């Protein structure tokens, strides 16, 4: 029998995080034996680009699509067509509206992440202070959810104020400029929280360039390989991330289970995902993989060459 | 044909530049046909000829802008060939061209020195030295502006002074002036004369091109005459009279070429009263009758084309009215003019007349599409029918009707443009320099055709700078000078001499009637 073809569709090719996820997907494929991974995506983070990719995948009659979406809604029609043609569709990392996929794999639970990003900042501000958010695009689904979750728990961190939210569009130069702008507009800023791997690196660079190392702490979600310099320079005390290798691995496992083993994605279902255990689906067919993991000067060396 | 030949050299100087058997052809036109021209040191040679005689083409060959198709150019008896303007400049030939070869965005000094500006040790343009030199040149020719002025801020006359200064900025042995006085005022012309004298005394050879005879007789030592691209004679100014020179220039026997036509003017078709424009023309008033050919004569730049274009709706007059068949009509656009039966065959055929890129038949039917189509949809069969009819009427020579008009000779292009307008069945047709730059054969065809049109009751306005054409074709002639009507002539008053005098504003005692 032919290989099972699972397409791993990412927001844009070339981003370190997704390259690591692809590595995880290959790991899962090797474990499963008869799986071929098609790692693909547009070269810029647009929904239109992803739709063209999805059309090509439907045409190739792949067995499953596991996608990290650039747009919650815009991909729904294309993915619905894929499902009509008998293709298993799941989303991971950045989700698709429920009608456009069978399940969604959150890297972690949104409340946990929302709490984590503010906690990372607050841990270094015992007396409170001003923090600002540097997000990706205004339309990034998961960034928006995390910031929402963060706002819900702000009461647990008295004295910490979010003074502004800016968007770096996941572009290094724009994120850099926005971070610089934040430091100008808020001279007393204590921390920049960037829940995006592009933004956090740019913000750290901006802090170093502005000579504000020690004054402004950059934190949020980033990749150890990209953030190693920032930890070393002191621009960032700590940051968190889940393991993208695990994420790619889990997504591939889930896609395989749904498409090959007749497992149905319904609320409450528990779906195995290899070495990562099982995923339990909630009311909207979503589940969380694991807790985010914190990196700082003590452990960065061990991880920076991995992803 | 009378060929005047130069008497044996009175002085024993030999020419600096000697052109012989020079030929130059453009697609469809032979601009120069085996002409000769000699320029002597310390002397002014006037090159005389009608519009399109090939004078400017000669200048462009001498300055390396065009390359010859045949013939030799010798400098000090050594054959030379110029591949580019730079070669000619290196050989010591400089020119004031008829077209303005200037750049609005540069300063006066830069315009004078572009391409050969003084350099500093570091290879940069030495602006101080350049401005100093330019200021001196400007002073020499009496220019009333500074070398720092932006060229765009200068009027047309002052721009011409810059062109003159540019030509003088090169240390040249040969200075060519192609109609240098066309845009200058009286005072500036006097200064130019002084300058020419200075150049002469420095031993430079000067080629002077002008349509103004008073000027030629005042400063030239020698003359060379071209007619329709051919050499017709040369000699010393001292040996010739003004009349003889005009005859030599105009040459052909007028009655032979132009069709005879019974002159039967009908009722008034067009009446223009007081047409004015802020800067181009003023108070133009005249009437045009059915079946009449009304000539408009004037020197180049007299404002005839500007006025005609305003009548055709391209520019708006500031005042004045236009009546067609007695009714006042307001013409805001060419489309309005065409609807009112006025059509215009422009002077600039390539830009305004023909739509190069479209085939012949589409050019012909362009303004008549309303008639060849139904409800806005093209009917090719109808178009070809119309095009065929008018191509035949004008005796068009072409390979096929769907050939690009750009591949036709000038004369045939002109026929297409005329055909285009006749197909609209107009009442008044304005022909602006209808035979400019077209060969003799096509010229005759156009003339014959104009006569036929008038005979059929079409009213024709013919703008022309060619004296024989004006005299040969017109029932009446309006002479324009500097944007105003200078006089209206008809019958026996229509002689080359009167036309030239009225157009140039020369008041002489030989004729009792001063304009």
């Amino acid at each position, binding site marked *: 029998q032919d290989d099972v073809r699972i397409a791993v569709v990412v927001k844009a090719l*070339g981003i370190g995080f997704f390259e690591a996820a692809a590595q995880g997907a290959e790991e899962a494929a090797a474990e499963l034996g008869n799986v071929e991974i098609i790692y693909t995506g547009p070269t810029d983070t647009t929904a239109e680009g992803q739709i063209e990719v999805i059309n090509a995948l439907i045409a190739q009659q792949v067995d499953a699509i596991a996608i990290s979406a650039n747009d919650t809604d815009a991909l729904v029609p294309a993915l619905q067509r894929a499902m009509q043609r008998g293709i298993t569709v799941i989303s991971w990392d950045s989700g698709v509206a429920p009608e456009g996929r069978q399940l969604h794999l959150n890297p972690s639970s949104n409340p946990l992440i929302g709490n984590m990003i503010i906690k990372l900042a607050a841990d270094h501000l015992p007396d409170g202070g001003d923090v600002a958010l540097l997000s990706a695009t205004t339309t990034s689904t998961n960034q928006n959810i995390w910031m929402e979750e963060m706002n819900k728990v702000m009461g647990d961190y008295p004295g910490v104020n979010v003074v502004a939210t800016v968007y770096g569009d996941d*572009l290094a*130069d724009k994120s850099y400029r926005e971070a610089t702008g934040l430091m100008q507009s808020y001279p007393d800023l204590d921390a920049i929280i960037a829940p995006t791997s592009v933004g956090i690196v740019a913000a750290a660079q901006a802090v170093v360039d502005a000579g504000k190392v020690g004054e402004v702490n950059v934190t949020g979600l980033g990749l150890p390989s990209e953030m190693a310099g920032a930890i070393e320079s002191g621009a960032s005390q700590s940051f968190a991330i889940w393991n993208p290798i695990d994420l790619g691995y889990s997504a591939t496992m889930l896609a395989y289970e749904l498409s090959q083993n007749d497992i149905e994605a319904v609320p409450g279902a528990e779906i195995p995902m290899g070495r990562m255990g099982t995923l339990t689906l909630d009311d909207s067919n979503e589940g969380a993989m694991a807790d985010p993991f914190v990196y700082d000067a003590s452990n960065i060396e061990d991880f920076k060459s991995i992803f | 044909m009378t060929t005047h030949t130069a008497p044996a050299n009175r002085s024993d100087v030999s020419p600096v530049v000697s052109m012989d058997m020079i030929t130059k052809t453009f697609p469809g036109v032979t601009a120069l046909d085996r002409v000769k021209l000699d320029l002597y040191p310390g002397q002014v040679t006037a090159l005389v000829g009608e519009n399109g005689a090939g004078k400017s083409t000669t200048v462009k060959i001498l300055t390396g802008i065009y390359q010859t198709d045949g013939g030799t150019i010798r400098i000090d008896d050594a054959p030379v060939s110029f591949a580019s303007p730079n070669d000619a400049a290196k050989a010591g030939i400089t020119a004031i061209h008829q077209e303005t070869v200037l750049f609005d965005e540069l300063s006066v000094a830069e315009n004078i020195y572009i391409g050969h500006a003084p350099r500093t040790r570091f290879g940069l343009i030495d602006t101080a030295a350049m401005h100093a030199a330019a200021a001196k040149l400007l002073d020499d020719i009496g220019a009333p502006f500074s070398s720092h002025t932006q060229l765009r801020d200068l*009027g047309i006359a002052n721009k011409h002074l810059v062109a003159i200064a540019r030509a003088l900025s090169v240390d040249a042995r040969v200075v060519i002036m192609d109609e240098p006085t066309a845009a200058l005022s009286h005072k500036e012309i006097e200064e130019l004369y002084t300058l020419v004298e200075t150049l002469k005394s420095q031993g430079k050879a000067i080629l002077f091109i002008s349509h103004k005879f008073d000027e030629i007789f005042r400063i030239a030592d020698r003359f060379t005459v071209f007619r329709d691209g051919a050499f017709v004679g040369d000699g010393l100014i001292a040996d010739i009279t003004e009349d003889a020179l005009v005859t030599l220039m105009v040459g052909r026997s007028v009655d032979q070429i132009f069709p005879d036509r019974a002159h039967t003017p009908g009722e008034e078709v067009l009446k223009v009263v007081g047409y004015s424009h802020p800067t181009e023309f*003023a108070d133009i008033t005249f009437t045009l009758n059915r079946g009449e050919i009304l000539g408009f004569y004037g020197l180049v730049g007299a404002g005839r084309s500007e006025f005609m274009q305003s009548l055709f709706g391209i520019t708006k007059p500031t005042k004045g009215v236009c009546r067609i068949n007695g009714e006042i009509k307001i013409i805001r656009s060419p489309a309005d003019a065409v609807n009112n039966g006025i059509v215009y065959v422009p002077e600039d055929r390539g830009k305004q007349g023909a739509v190069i890129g479209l085939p012949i038949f589409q050019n012909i039917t362009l303004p008549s599409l309303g008639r060849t189509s139904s409800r806005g949809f093209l009917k090719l069969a109808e178009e070809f029918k119309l095009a065929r009819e008018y191509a035949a009427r004008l005796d068009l020579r072409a390979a096929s009707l769907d050939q690009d008009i750009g591949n036709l000779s000038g004369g045939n292009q002109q026929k297409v443009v005329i055909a285009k307008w006749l197909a609209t069945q107009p009442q008044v047709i304005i022909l602006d320099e209808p035979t400019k730059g077209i060969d003799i054969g096509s010229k005759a065809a156009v003339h014959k055709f104009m006569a036929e049109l008038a005979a059929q009751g079409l009213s024709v306005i013919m703008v022309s700078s060619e004296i024989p054409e004006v005299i040969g074709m017109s029932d009446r002639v309006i002479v324009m000078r500097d944007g105003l009507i200078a006089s209206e002539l008809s019958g026996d008053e229509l002689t080359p001499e009167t036309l030239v005098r009225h157009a140039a504003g020369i008041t002489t005692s030989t004729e009792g009637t001063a304009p």
Partner: protein
Amino acid sequence: MMRHIPVRETILASAILLLIVLIASRFAGFVAPANLANVFNDTAPLIILALGQMVVILTRCIDLSVAANLALTGMAVAMINVAFPGLPIPFILAIAVTLGAMMGAINGVLVWKLNIPPIVVTLGTMTIFRGIIFLISDGKWVNSHEMSPAFTGFPRAAFLGLPVLSWIAIITVVAFGVMMSRTQFGRSIFAVGGNPHAAVYTGINVGRTQFGAFVVSGALAGLTGYLWVARYAVAYVDIAGGFELEVVAACVIGGISIAGGIGSVGGAVLGAIFLGVVKNALPVVNISPFWQLAISGSAILIAVAFNARSGRTKGRIILKSAEVTQ
């Protein structure tokens, strides 16, 4: 004499000053010298590229490939730096300028020798250059920790209180000031764009001048490519995406006529600074950054309408009476 004051530049400069004053009235910190220096440093790449684009536009061409050229050169030097971390910065600079100039030369040859309209040529090379980045990098990013400290440090090293990036922009402006006003090439560029027909009469080769303009624009794009990548300490396929339009916009706002021949170094610089100030000011004065696009669009429209009105050429005057009153 009033004539010697360049009207267009004065008005644009006043508009920028007014803008800065308005911003200062809401946020005084904006006019702090340190912040203004920051704004300038931020705008430096745009200034450099606008000058290159100016030269191209002056010769009646357009270069839509500058941003792609920048990105490709940036990626190339970043990868070279990863492979040979010890390579001194002057080498890197030379490589960047040469690479950029070569890409400009490709555009220039296609325009000069094959007579293909510049907009088609650069539209094509724009996508090709971008694609090549993907091919050479395999779509992967080059991150800050992979670059050598000297590589990323150069543009931000401070000299007399300003970062090197700012100094390079200043040097480029001065060099262009000299080139455009004091060299044969600079003056030819105006001549070619202003009146190509007449340029031929004066012995200027129009095609070769256009080629030269593309090479200059390409070389500057290459230089900016290195500076950009080093400053933001990252290189990937999409850097400076769509930046070509911002560069053209800076030129248009600065009064460079798209029809060629009209424009000045000062205009291009001011046009770039205008956009830079707007971009930096919006977050500061708490106007949503979403307004930025609409503002720069309106600025382009206003500038082009204004320039067309003031640049209208005076007609020829035939009437003697009219000449007197003029």
